[in-house]
């Protein structure tokens, strides 16, 4: 295995200024809603005020009569979708469900479910018109909790749905025939769980609950859509994957995929939430009906209530260890609330749960359960924060019971190359143990807590990362620069990382690469800006296009030097003759001679990379808890993560820091707070309480670099894993600080105070 130092990179590992930087610090960058068209209308959605209701009748006549209103649509204006399973991001979804989610057909399945839409001359008129639409509902009792929904007498979200006992989630599996909110169940078994627990000297079993949380991207979903007179549809939007959304739109609208073009604008955050389509479909139908381009943007409340947050969950976790500290058995039962339609991230949660450790006997039962809440979507390492919160809490307790330091305990049990995950797959080269060891060597680990009511917590995490196809094209410019055309929306600085790999391959400075993001008709297929895959997969394509272009340029050098192409080689940005050492041309020099030697050079490649390279990470946090108010202050935070090769270390650190802070928010304060009727009570940034700058200390990122052997530049995904460890790390830190084991997220102040009271009552009772 080569280390990153062995690779001797010139550009990779440096910190150039991002290519889109000037646009973004001056306000000139065009985000989705900044795109304007002549004659555009504003669209607005009417959403269900009920969590569960039959739509008896919709009367749009008053809205249609309002001056300035140009079109009104309901679910009846969408084609009847096929009852067919398709992949959608990290989950898969039935096409009919997909269609029903963007616009309810006969039933509203969650509060915030779209039931009608209006296009009008401006947003204020559109809002007024929406309020004039009269909907007659037959309100049904909602089911709002996964465990409750599993009960035989629970109201059925989809009355015809039966439980599928299946390998994963999908047909045909084995249909129980039993009507149920359990859309699917699966299990993963490794070794012999009963035998494992027999070997255990200590066993800990606990139940953990997490609440729904939102990705919290600052830019709301938006789309501008033109359904043209030739039936071509053009979309300008905020997208984590234009090709996927094009396909989803085609399925829902029953429209040829080639007649839909999506031009991604700058995207203001996504974290998984901008993989699905929402507004794109009603905006298209409104455009068709009105003959005008239609622009739509969600309000913040609509974003919370009408998009796809991350599932709430219940996890039963039982683990056993020998008295000398070896984890010998792990059992879990996972109940994930999918929301109104099947397809939570429970499979990923199951796969990631115990993966940091080498455990020979594992059994995991997992349930995907529908409830009257929005359809869940991907959120940074989907499914895994919930389950690792449980596992890491239990691991900590095991370490305590066997009297071993929690970090040492993790090191002793760390999974290594060749060890098997719960699903049986053997681990490839990865830096799990290295993260733990480097954290142990950090100043943070060696520091004192320095005060009462303080505690230190540690937790580890795993995320598998993704590959996905990519297409890139390069053209060599006469001034020796290279234009890079790519198709993955840049959500956090991928332009610069892709430009740097391109620069490395051509032996030119990063500034000499011009990265441009193309629409779906201007570049080959690209996967999602998701799955921590953008730099990885485009890096594979870049290596290929660069090789093609360099090979073509070698032939031009051969022509100039009147020699055979086999005599020409390229290294460190210089073409040279193997025969005559004085014959040399820099990349830039040769680029200036292309027209004289046969014309311009551009190359393109499409790839489907394998071997994404898994991510591992261990975090450490110091907290101080105010025992009177339950408030948790974060004093110090360090995250160690295997990042493969850090192309641009600043942006890699940024991913580590940003994910850690999202995890901190999830752990401490963020949640969907529902009343009994299924109404979200806190659908604003004020009450949802994402962390502010004042809630945080510095976040130290230790970049552990174990290159991915399956990648030309050693890249492994870096973006998602960082949200996994904070939940458990904070729970463990709170336990260390004030002695209470929090088993429910968020660990809000009132819950911590309650836990302290309960502990006191217990010790009084015992005393």
């Amino acid at each position, binding site marked *: 295995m080569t280390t990153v130092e062995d690779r001797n990179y010139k550009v990779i590992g440096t*910190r150039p*200024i*991002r290519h*889109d*930087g*000037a646009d973004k*610090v*001056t*306000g*000139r*960058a065009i*985000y989705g*809603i*900044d795109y*304007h068209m002549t004659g555009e209308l504003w669209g607005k959605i009417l959403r269900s005020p009920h969590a569960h209701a039959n739509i008896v009748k919709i009367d749009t006549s008053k809205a249609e009569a*309002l*001056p*300035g209103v140009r079109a009104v649509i309901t679910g009846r204006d969408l084609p009847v979708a096929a009852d067919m399973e398709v992949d959608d991001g990290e989950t898969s979804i039935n096409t009919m469900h997909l269609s029903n989610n963007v616009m309810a057909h006969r039933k509203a399945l969650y509060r915030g479910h779209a039931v009608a839409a209006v296009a009008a*001359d*401006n947003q*204020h*008129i559109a809002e007024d018109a929406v309020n004039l639409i009269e909907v007659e509902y037959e309100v049904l009792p909602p089911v709002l909790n996964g465990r409750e929904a599993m009960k035989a007498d629970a109201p059925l979200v989809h009355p015809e749905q039966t439980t599928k006992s299946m390998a994963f989630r999908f047909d045909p599996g084995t249909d129980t025939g039993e009507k149920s909110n359990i859309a699917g169940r699966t299990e993963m078994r490794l070794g012999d769980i009963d035998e494992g627990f027999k070997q255990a000297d200590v066993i800990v079993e606990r139940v953990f609950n997490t609440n729904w949380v939102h*990705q*919290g*991207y*600052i*830019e*709301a979903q938006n789309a501008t859509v033109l359904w043209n007179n030739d039936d071509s549809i053009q979309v300008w939007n905020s997208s984590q994957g234009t090709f996927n959304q094009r396909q989803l739109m085609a399925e829902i609208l029953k429209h040829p995929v080639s007649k839909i073009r999506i031009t991604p604008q*700058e*995207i*203001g*955050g996504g*974290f998984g939430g901008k993989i699905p389509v929402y507004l794109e479909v009603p905006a298209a139908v409104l455009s068709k009906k009105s003959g005008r381009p239609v622009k739509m*943007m969600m309000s*913040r409340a609509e974003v919370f209530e009408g998009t796809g947050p991350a599932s709430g969950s219940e996890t039963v976790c039982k683990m056993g260890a020998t008295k000398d500290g070896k984890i010998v058995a792990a059992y879990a039962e996972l109940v994930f609330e999918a929301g109104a339609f099947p397809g939570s991230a429970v499979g990923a949660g199951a796969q990631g749960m115990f993966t940091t450790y080498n455990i020979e006997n594992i059994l995991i039962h997992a349930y995907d359960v529908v409830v009257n809440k929005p359809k869940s979507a991907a959120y940074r390492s989907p499914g895994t924060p919930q389950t690792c919160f449980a596992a890491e809490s239990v691991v900590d307790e095991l370490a305590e019971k066997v009297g071993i330091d929690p970090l040492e305990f993790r090191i002793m049990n760390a999974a290594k190359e060749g060890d098997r995950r719960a699903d049986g797959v053997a681990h490839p080269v990865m830096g799990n143990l290295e993260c733990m060891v480097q954290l142990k060597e950090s100043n943070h680990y060696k520091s004192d807590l320095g005060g009462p009511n303080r505690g230190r917590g540690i937790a580890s995490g795993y995320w598998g990362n993704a590959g996905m196809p990519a297409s890139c094209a390069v053209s060599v410019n006469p001034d020796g620069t290279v234009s890079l055309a790519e198709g993955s929306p840049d*959500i*956090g*600085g991928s332009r610069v990382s892709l430009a740097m790999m391109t620069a490395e391959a051509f032996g030119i400075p990063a500034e000499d690469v011009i990265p441009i993001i193309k629409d779906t008709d201007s570049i080959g297929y690209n996967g999602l800006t998701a799955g921590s895959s953008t730099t990885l997969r485009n890096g594979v394509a870049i290596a290929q296009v660069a090789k093609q272009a360099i090979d073509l340029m070698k032939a031009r050098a051969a022509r100039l030097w009147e020699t055979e192409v086999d005599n020409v080689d390229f290294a460190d940005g210089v073409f040279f003759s193997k025969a005559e050492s004085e014959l040399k041309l820099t990349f830039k020099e040769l680029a200036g001679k292309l027209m004289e030697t046969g014309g311009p050079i551009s190359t393109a490649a499409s790839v489907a990379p394998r071997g994404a390279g898994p991510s591992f990470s261990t975090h450490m946090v110091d907290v101080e808890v105010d025992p009177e108010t339950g408030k948790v202050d974060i004093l110090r935070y360090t995250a160690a993560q295997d990042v493969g090769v850090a192309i*641009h270390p*600043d*942006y890699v*650190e*940024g*991913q580590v*820091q*940003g*994910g*850690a*802070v*999202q995890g901190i928010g999830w752990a401490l304060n963020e949640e969907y707070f529902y009343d009994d009727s299924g109404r979200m009570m806190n659908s*604003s*940034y*004020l009450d949802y309480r*994402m962390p*502010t*700058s*004042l809630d*945080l200390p*510095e*976040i130290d990122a230790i970049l552990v670099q174990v290159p991915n052997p399956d990648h030309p530049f050693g890249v492994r995904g870096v973006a998602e894993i960082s949200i996994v460890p904070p939940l458990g790390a904070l729970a463990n830190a709170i336990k260390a600080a004030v002695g209470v084991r929090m088993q429910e997220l968020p660990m809000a102040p009132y819950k911590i105070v309650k836990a302290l009271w309960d502990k006191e009552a217990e010790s009084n009772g015992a005393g």
Partner: protein
Amino acid sequence: MPSEKIHVRTTVNGEATDFLCEANQSLLEVLRDVLYMTGTKEGCNDGNCGACTVNLDGRIVDSCLVLGVEAQGATIETIEGVATPEGLHPIQQAFLENAALQCGICTPGFIVASKALLEREPNPSEHRIRHWLAGNLCRCTGYDKIVRAVVDAAGHMGGKS
């Protein structure tokens, strides 16, 4: 039905700027949809994210919580007025050099807010920076690099940070 439009005279980024707006339009809406100055961003439209921060008569405000008509006679500075033809402002440069942005949607608000801080207090502590910027939400960076960028900019602008 559009109601009667009101004529508002302001100074935007040093230029006398007149516009017509309806009384229910926010300053944010006027900037973006009337003046087509889309650098100021909408994040929440209720004063809780700071993405729409502008400087109004010397104070930073959330432009979603100001009516366009209230700006009669006001001096407004937006993100579009921060850089000059000579180049980026030191804060903008510091954001770039410190990789203090990922998606960039919150960046204009952070830059307008940070500039107001450093003009008032050239050498703020890290805690003061975090306090001043608490009205600006960023979901990508975890704030670490933003805070570092402001410290760095203070140094370049003459503060001793």
